[in-house]
């Protein structure tokens, strides 16, 4: 029996799955070459037909975003402009698989090098199209995943997700991937457990795996005791989730009748499409890193993204965090390479060091503010001077917009509490509009335990008395000074941490949308 192997990832869709690991990154499928160019052409024609047929069948079982993705892929496959170069290469003597791959790779490269985020994201759709036809060409080597399998690999194509029958369980564990991807969105809406960001695997993995997509981990070759513990967590999760659903529509109140405001965290404007605004008090954290892909976003792109969320939220507040690049979130052309990036030029430090980039975001925020109830906060504030300088930039840009006659509004400006210096001595910040505790970073800095390092994960607990004491002191300072205090880290949505957070004096939590019902249910169980 091999030793159990545990890998840590990030939860993209909560839930539990136990099943055989199915490798998504197959050994390169072999295509059997044909004798003549005419046969190669016929083989490609047939493969494109098979791929189109499969997509058409999938469309009938899909709706909304999923159907839109498929319809776009079909339109592409039906376009001679896409297939023409491949057929020309076949006529020139190429085998069908190489011809198709070359033609599509050229097309994909065009998308990948686009300077528009939206357009670049379509490269994934184009790769999906390429691979579906290649699969059809090399059909016999395509192994079917067993029922209840846990799909493991670099990434998973939307079509692969849609054609899989999830009714008998199963889940997804990705080395790369993103919680903001199409597939993650689909997984959450269908309740398929999924984790991302496992990183490169130390060895070839196979066999039975336990996927814990509530906390973001996977165990291979589990021991008997681990399997039993896993099954207990899994049935407890199912019971909690079923019970939690009944809390979703209701305001969050503890057993003792104390009201708690629960907002949601989003990482991309499209995240709000799956949320009913009546189930939350607003957006407690909107990240803006999604805008900063391979290139820096222009003012208009940012303005549209912010405006969309503000209009969706109506009267309810939307707290947007200025870009928190650096640390584990590098942005080419913006962040710098550093030996110790978590302690380096990240968050507000980077924004203040690159004011020409920061000013663009500030203008977009000031303009978007007229479309709703906007609040803006700065990440990684360590000293009061950083806040003052950021506020000064807002004031300058506002004056510029006024001079040009552009509609704008100054939003309340608050700070993240994640650097221990702020939590220890909050009195230096008596003039901020609000505090939002970033418990993930606060914990890693207080405990000196990097959050992306599994070997020190046992130290990384928000429930350590040192972390809780700091949270309680910030909450008390806020009450005394009448400055609102909320918390937007992962702990806010963790049922095991919620009692301690309320005990520390917090009454305002922001959680990922998938945890909203569970968080409300956990709050209802607290007797404060």
């Amino acid at each position, binding site marked *: 029996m091999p030793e159990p192997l545990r890998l840590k990832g990030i939860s993209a869709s909560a839930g539990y799955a136990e099943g055989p690991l199915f490798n998504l990154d197959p050994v390169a499928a072999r295509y059997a070459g044909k004798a003549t160019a005419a046969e190669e052409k016929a083989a490609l024609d047939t493969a494109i037909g098979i791929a189109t047929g499969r997509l058409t069948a999938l469309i009938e079982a899909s709706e909304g975003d999923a159907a839109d993705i498929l319809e776009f892929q079909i339109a592409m496959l039906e376009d*001679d402009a896409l297939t023409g170069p491949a057929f020309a290469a076949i006529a020139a003597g190429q085998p069908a698989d190489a011809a198709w791959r070359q033609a599509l790779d050229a097309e994909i490269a065009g998308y990948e090098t686009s300077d528009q985020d939206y357009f670049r994201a379509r490269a994934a759709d184009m790769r999906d199209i390429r691979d579906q036809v290649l699969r059809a060409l090399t059909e016999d080597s395509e192994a079917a995943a067993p029922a209840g399998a846990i799909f493991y690999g670099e990434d998973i194509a939307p079509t692969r997700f849609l054609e899989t029958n999830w009714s008998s369980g199963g889940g997804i564990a990705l080395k790369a991937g993103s919680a903001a991807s199409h597939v993650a969105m689909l997984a959450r809406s269908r309740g398929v457990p999924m984790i991302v960001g496992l990183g490169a695997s130390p060895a070839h993995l196979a066999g039975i795996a336990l996927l814990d997509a509530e906390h973001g981990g996977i165990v291979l070759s589990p021991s008997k005791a681990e399997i039993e513990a896993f099954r207990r967590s899994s049935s407890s999760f199912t019971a909690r989730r079923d019970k939690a659903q009944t809390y979703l529509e209701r305001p969050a109140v503890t057993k003792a009748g104390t009201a708690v405001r629960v907002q949601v965290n989003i990482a*991309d404007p499209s995240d709000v499409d799956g949320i009913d605004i009546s189930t939350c008090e607003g957006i407690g954290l909107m990240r803006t890193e999604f805008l900063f892909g391979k290139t820096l976003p222009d003012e208009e792109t940012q303005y549209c993204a912010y405006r969309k969320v503000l*209009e969706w939220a109506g009267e309810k507040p939307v707290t947007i965090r200025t870009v928190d690049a650096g640390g584990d979130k590098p942005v080419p052309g913006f962040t710098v390479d550093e030996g110790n990036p978590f302690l380096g030029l990240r968050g507000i430090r980077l924004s203040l060091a690159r004011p020409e980039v920061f000013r663009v975001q500030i203008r977009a925020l000031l303009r978007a503010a007229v479309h709703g109830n906007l609040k803006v906060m700065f990440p990684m504030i360590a000293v009061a001077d950083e806040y003052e300088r950021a506020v000064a930039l807002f004031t300058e840009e506002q004056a510029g917009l006024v001079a040009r006659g552009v509609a704008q509004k100054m939003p309340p400006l608050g700070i993240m509490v994640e650097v221990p210096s702020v939590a220890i001595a909050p009195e230096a910040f008596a003039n901020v509009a609000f505090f939002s505790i970033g418990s993930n970073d606060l914990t890693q800095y207080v405990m000196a335990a990097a959050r992306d390092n599994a070997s020190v994960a046992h130290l990384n607990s928000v429930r350590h008395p040192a972390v809780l004491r700091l949270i309680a002191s910030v909450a008390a300072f806020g009450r005394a000074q009448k400055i609102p205090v909320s918390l937007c880290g992962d702990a806010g949505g963790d049922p095991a941490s919620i009692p301690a957070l309320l005990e520390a004096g917090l009454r305002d939590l922001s959680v990922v949308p998938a945890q909203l019902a569970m968080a409300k249910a956990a709050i209802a169980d607290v007797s404060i």
Partner: protein
Amino acid sequence: MSASAEATVLITHEVGLHARPSVKFTKLAKTFSADVEVALAANGPWFDAKSIVKVMAAKAPKGTVLHIRARGDGAGEAVGALAELVRRDFDEGVDHARTA
């Protein structure tokens, strides 16, 4: 003698003439027998409006003035209908603009 027509229209759709809008656009273009082309400037380059590959390659973001021209039977109707589709925001409200 074959008919020809031209029009310009402002793209107001949130993500521009991209995946979903371009599916609608090319589908509508294909319903006309006239040759239809689009461009981002009056002097081109011109892209085949019936090819989603070409229309996507035009990379027209929100705020672009799209030039549409057609030649052949029903050229006027083709240009009119396509410009109208863009003007109607591809029959999608801003509230429904998703990133797909």
